[in-house]
């Protein structure tokens, strides 16, 4: 592997994001050491005016310093895109995650009521049943053919999708559409998922509209006929006498699909890949269910499924002795912070017993910290225990196809085989 040099690095180059993780980590190690606020021009996206550029924040301490001061480093002009979002996209994708206080605090407290540990506890049986069912279907598929499966499509994708659809009460008939549209939204413009880059923005809008229509319909149904699901909780919950509008519910559903579904999928698929590359760690976890708590954290640290979130300086600010003018954009590179040797001993080693493990895979300190962190932890733990117990013969059998996206560290496919009892 060629040694990277500072001037050759361009984080806005799409090619960089299709490169294997080792190469990307070598680049982030260099940036963290030599240029912890490296500045880059913005990537060119059709029909969107590129802004002035952004700083890539790669040190753990700086990521935390920005994340925990939301009044100075705001999310409102866009947390999930480098360019400021055009208002019509903001309508669908600008919920919660791209809001600031006081609105953020209000909406967050409404949705938090539907995501407490006690509510989650009721779901545990559900997550287990979903994982068991998905594993059985994968076994069936392998048995009906030559033993091949795709870890992404057959194991990693269906678990979080079914859990979220069950939570929201999405009818079975609508689920294929939900999967397809959420893929478009999360493609980050990957050419394989959006055929024509020119139409990326249109495809995004159409996907958002289709999902919003479904949710608006469902929200109306639950208002007249409440059920035991998250949609009902969302239409009925009040904070300070205020309820979510249908539009807000639709936006929030899209956020849940994107934030909750694809992230967990990629943690699972890349976790399977990481374990196949570290068979001693895989065997250790298989033999010791007690390792699950720390192992799940290490998988999230290792895979860091969300590569960055953006913050924008609301005034002239100072960070680690450097000054930045108001309006400066910062991308918080979580995967880079998660390999910062100042915080993690031997950061490039996968250690399923790592403890403490204060990773920022779910975001760093601050009000936007992942709403679904406990749900994701539960899903990942249940999924890997089900794989260890019911698919001990699972073997990765080919190269992964990586998503070319700077925002989501993801796999499109991971060929594997179930070799059967030997």
């Amino acid at each position, binding site marked *: 592997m060629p040694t990277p040099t500072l001037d050759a690095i361009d984080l806005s180059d799409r090619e960089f994001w299709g490169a294997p993780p080792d190469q990307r980590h070598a680049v982030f190690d260099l940036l963290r050491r030599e240029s912890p606020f490296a500045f880059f021009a913005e990537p060119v996206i059709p029909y969107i005016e590129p802004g002035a550029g952004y700083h890539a924040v790669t040190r753990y301490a700086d990521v935390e310093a920005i994340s925990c001061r939301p009044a100075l480093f705001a999310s409102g002009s866009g947390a999930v895109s480098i360019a400021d979002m055009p208002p019509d996209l903001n309508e669908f994708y600008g919920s919660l995650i791209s809001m600031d206080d006081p609105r953020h605090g209000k909406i967050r*407290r409404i949705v*938090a*009521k539907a*995501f407490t*540990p006690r509510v989650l506890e009721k779901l545990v049986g559900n997550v287990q049943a979903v994982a068991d069912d998905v594993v059985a279907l994968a076994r069936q598929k392998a048995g009906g053919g030559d033993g091949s499966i795709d870890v992404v499509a057959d194991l990693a994708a269906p678990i979080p999708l079914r859990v979220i659809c069950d939570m929201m009460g999405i009818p079975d008939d609508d689920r294929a559409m939900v999967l397809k549209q959420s893929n478009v939204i999360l493609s980050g413009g990957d050419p394989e998922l959006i055929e024509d880059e020119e139409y990326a923005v249109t495809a995004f809008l159409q996907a958002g509209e289709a999902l919003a229509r479904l949710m608006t319909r469902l929200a109306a149904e639950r208002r007249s006929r409440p059920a035991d699901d998250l949609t009902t909780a969302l239409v009925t919950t009040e*904070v300070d006498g205020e309820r979510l509008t249908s539009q807000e519910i639709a936006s929030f559903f899209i956020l849940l699909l994107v934030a909750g579904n694809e992230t967990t999928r990629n943690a699972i698929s890349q976790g399977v890949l990481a374990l196949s590359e570290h068979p001693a760690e895989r065997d250790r976890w298989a033999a010791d269910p007690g390792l699950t708590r720390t192992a799940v954290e290490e998988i999230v640290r290792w895979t860091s499924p969300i590569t960055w979130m953006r913050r924008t300086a609301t005034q002239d600010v100072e960070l680690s002795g450097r000054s930045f003018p108001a309006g400066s954009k910062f991308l918080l590179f979580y995967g880079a912070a998660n390999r910062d040797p100042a915080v993690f001993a031997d950061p490039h080693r996968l250690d399923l017993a790592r403890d403490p493990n204060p990773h920022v895979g779910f975001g760093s300190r601050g*009000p936007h*910290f992942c709403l679904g*962190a406990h749900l994701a932890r539960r899903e990942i733990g249940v999924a890997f225990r089900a794989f260890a117990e019911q698919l001990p013969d699972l073997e990765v059998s080919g190269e992964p196809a990586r998503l070319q996206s700077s925002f989501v560290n993801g796999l499109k496919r991971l060929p594997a085989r179930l070799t059967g009892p030997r």
Partner: protein
Amino acid sequence: MTRVVVDRERCMSSGICEMEAPEVFELDDDGVLQVRQPADVSQVATAVRACPTGALALVD
């Protein structure tokens, strides 16, 4: 005696503390954090550190 206190302005009902120390913290049906003072505050040290908004503190 050392006690654990919640800053209500900062707490956004994430439930991270409850996952760490369920005997001490519990979000009620309204999403409001209820605290049962622990006999031994060392029990909640991890939860205090883990709170993403820095809403928890130990005071004498």
